[in-house]
Each structure stands twice: as structure tokens, then as C-alpha cells.
């Protein structure tokens, strides 16, 4: 099971949207550029005032993956081994998210495959964005 999440000031919009089963990513309106993880200012132009939260389509692709056999997080250790993939968002492949790829057998991950957004529930009830491989049917 995933650790619980206590939203903080910087990430509260992200986690609140997740509880509504939406994915939002920080966007700089001055640069028209997404950034993730979020920050107090845009990593390109330095503006803080131009930052907003932008809803994503929930589509992406698997960049690559590893199989975690020795996890430092206590609550996840009972789930070992598990997939841990890096997802590139369709809106901007430079933006990454992690995923356990629910439904994909361990170490049978189709690199480059399309994925779609789903949600998992962490130990304290917080919903967490996850990704599932898109099948043809």
C-alpha cells in the first residue's frame, strides 16, 4: 500500500484534484510551459505570478521502467517486487510521472506503450494518480 499523503501548500491543488480524479500540472502562462514537480516559481522565466494549475488529458506513454525488489518505504515492502515506471505525458513528453502500472504483470512492461490515467488510494485515503496500459479493446 502507498504511504499516506499530507498535502502541503505547494502541492495542495495537485492532491485536491486527485481526490476529484483529475490530474492537474503546474503551468507557466508566461512561458506556456508545464513543470512537474511543482515549484514556487517557473524554472524557465522565474515568475511566480504566472503559475497556474492546468488539467491534463490523462494520456501518456511509458518511457521506461524498473522492478523494485528492495524498497525503502515500509508500507510498500509487502508488495515487492513491483513495477515502477516513468510516464511521459502526451501534452508534453518532458513531463514525467511515476506509476506502478496496475494490471501489468511484474517485469512485463511494454516500453513505449500508451497509458491512461486511473487512481489508486493511499493509506490515509488520499487518491493518487496512477497509469494503466491502454489495450486495443
Amino acid at each position, binding site marked *: 500500500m*502507498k*504511504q*499516506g*499523503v*499530507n*498535502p*502541503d501548500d*505547494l*502541492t*495542495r491543488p*495537485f*492532491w485536491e484534484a486527485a481526490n476529484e480524479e483529475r490530474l492537474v500540472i503546474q503551468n507557466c502562462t508566461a512561458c506556456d510551459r508545464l*513543470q*512537474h*514537480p*511543482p515549484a514556487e516559481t517557473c*524554472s524557465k522565466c522565474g515568475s511566480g505570478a504566472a503559475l497556474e494549475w492546468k488539467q491534463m488529458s490523462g494520456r501518456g506513454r511509458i*518511457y*521506461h*521502467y*524498473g*522492478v*523494485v*525488489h*528492495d*524498497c*525503502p*518505504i*515500509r*508500507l*510498500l515492502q509487502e508488495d515487492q*517486487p*513491483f513495477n*515502477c515506471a*516513468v510516464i511521459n505525458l502526451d501534452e508534453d513528453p*518532458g*513531463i*514525467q*510521472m*511515476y*506509476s*506502478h502500472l496496475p494490471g501489468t504483470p511484474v*517485469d512485463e512492461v511494454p*516500453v513505449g506503450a500508451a497509458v491512461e490515467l486511473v487512481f489508486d488510494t*493511499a*493509506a*490515509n485515503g488520499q487518491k*493518487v494518480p496512477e497509469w494503466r496500459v491502454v489495450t486495443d479493446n
Partner: protein
Amino acid sequence: MSTENAPQSMYRSREGLGVWEHRGKVAAVGIGHGPTSRRWDGKPDTSLGAISLIALRRAIEDAGVDPGDIDGLVMDEKTTTGAFWPRGQELPWDVINAYNTTDAPLDGITQLSAEWILKNMPELAGNRFTMYGPGCMSNAIVVAAQAIGDGLAHTCLVLKAWHNLPGRYYQTGANADDAIPGTAALRSVWGAPACYGTAIQFAEYCRKYGKNHDMMAPFISNSRRNGLRFPEGYWAQHRPEEITTEDYKAARWIAKPANLFDNDIPIMCSAAYLFTTAERARHMKQKPVYILGHASSRGQARSFIPTLDEVEAECAESGRKLLEAAGITVDDVSFENLYDGFPQFHQFHMEGIRYRGIQPGEALDFYQTDISITGPNPVSPSGGNIGSGRSRFWMHTDCIQQIQHRAGERQVTGVEPVIGVSGGPMPTGGNFTCWSATPDY
């Protein structure tokens, strides 16, 4: 005395800066190491501070310098390998009170300030300059070299120490909690261990170039073999165990494709060097090893993990910057000691500088050739972190010792050690140094 982090202006992190303005005018002379251990046993004479005092005094003695002539100290205040003092555990007052203390009770135990060092080394009464090169020895070396070149000090100690405490690596603190803050959760809620990012880059490297994990075996075996010839190292001192190809292939996974031997072992250790001006170095006990140039990378990943494209671009830029600063070409490099902790990114550093002309995607094939210390293409003769435990300084010690012909059983014999390069740690954030047997190569 308050010690500040070095300003970014001391790091040469842009391309096009030309040859280093102090090329050949700064030299390393003395080397000292403290004893290593897997974890601290709680005693005063094995504490972080204690082993660092040993390292510093050995470096001074090795250089043959009067401690009163030393006017500089550059070091890194942070010392954790991932271990932090457990929440709620009583402080070790017997150890704290065994030394002259600072306002931070755990100074000398789980952190190490310049103030603590100077309070416990009264022989350094002539010190007038302290600065932090935060991160690792690679940072401190760059800062010390620049400081001497700029005239901020003329005889400077350079120190890096690491502490490790009882308990498994990164299994305590927030990782053991039921819930974590939202910002940290964006990364850690998926449970990726420390080697994961490099493992992802390595996986993509193998996919892109048609390589595989087993091809790393000769590098790992060679590194441990070299490390076992490093008497100051952890494995040589405590567990003289080779790693065979079969051992490597059979090792348990941590985050596949990174296995146990694709990770270094956290240890307690400390090392110090004595740097000085080229002029003063001529009168010291050991042969000077001159710094021809230094360079730093400050790459920013777009998102969480630097992609292979980002890593390769940054390493190539670092290689160009270092050669430009040193005023040499890669053909002048006798041997390389680029960082290996994690070993799965060592090839990025090697390919970045084009060591022996290898291009991106060729390093793992290069590993299948003779990369030993007796051959014409020595790779990591120090053995690095894989050979001697996590310190991030074996590579620098080895460069100095090889060029001084003091590397003992590790001494390279297939090449004349005239120019060595070392540095790291990360492909997208590191500091690199070019060492030379002569000031005007």
C-alpha cells in the same frame, strides 16, 4: 567564525571560459585517510570527528608541512550517507563532551563544521580562510583549487567525511511513516530506491544501443579488484572479497536492472588532501600533482529523472569544459577515475569525455577489452566506490597517488601516469578535475 558555501562564481560551469586562469599554479601534495568502518560503533575515537582529525593530521604529515603554515580549510559540512540521528534517541553526551564542541550538539557525529575542526586542531592556529564546497570531495577540490589560485589561501586542507549509523540504509525516518508531506510524496509514494533513476537511464541506454546488464560485469570485477589493492578502502580493510562475473550475474536485484553490486556500500570514512601553490609545493615532502583545470556541470532535469538524452548531452558538455579548462585534448589523458557510485552511470562520464575515443553507446563494449591497471586503457584504477565503499573520494586520491607513483599495488603499468581526470558525482551535477605530473604540460 562563520563558514559560507562557496559562491557559484568559483565553479566553472559554462562552456567557452577557455583555459583555467590558474592552470598549473595549484598543486596537491599531501594525502591522509582515516580508518573506515561499516557503521559507527558509538565510541569517541571512531566518531566522524575523530576519523577526520586523523585524516587531516595524516595529510599534513604526508606533505611535510608545519601545521602553523596552513591558512585554509575547505570541506563539506554535510556527512550523511543516508543515516540520520534517530528521532527521540538520547544524544551521545560522552562522545560530544570528549571534544571541544560547537552550538550543534551532533557536530563531529552526524555533521562536521569547519568550526568543530578548528576547535579540535589547535595546531591550525594560522588558519584564516574556511569555505564549504557542499556535496562531496569533488566540490571541495574545485573550491580549494580556485581559492588558492585566487589568493584566498596559500596552503589549504581539503576534507570530506561521511558518517553511517546502525540500521538499514534509508529505512528509517519518513520512509517508515504512515504518511508523508505532499511535496515529498510526488516522488517517494511510488517507493523507488536511490539507484532507480540511474537504473532507468541504464535501461534506456541498453535499449537504445542494444546492450545488456551482463556487459557491466567486467567493469564491476575490475573495480573491486582495484579496490582490494587500496589499503585505505573499506573492502580491503574489512572484507577482502572479489566480485566475479558469476557473482555479479547472480546478485539480487534492488531495482532491476540495478542489482546489489550496481550499488555501493555506505560506510564511515574521511579523507584529506593538502593543496598549495605550485611555488610552495616544490619545497614539500611529496611530488606535487598540478591541477590543470576544473569544470562543473549544473544540468537541470526537466522533470523528475534526467532522461538519457539529457544525461548524454550534459556529460559531453562536461567533458568539453574540462578539456578546455585544462588546455589539453582527450588524447593527452593517461587514465580516468570518473565517478562510479552508481556504476551504471560511469559509462556516461567516460563517453562524455570520449575517453580513448569511445563514442556514446560504446563503453560497455570497451569494458569487454583489457581495462585493467596493467593494460593500455585503465578504467577506474582507483576502483571507485565499488572497490572501496562510498566515499566519492577514492578517485581523487588515486589520481594524485598514480601521478606521484605512490599507488602501490594499484599503480598503472600499461601507461605512464602523466594526466588523470576525476570527478562526479552525478552526470547532471558534478565537478571534475584534471591532474598533471607537470605544471606546464
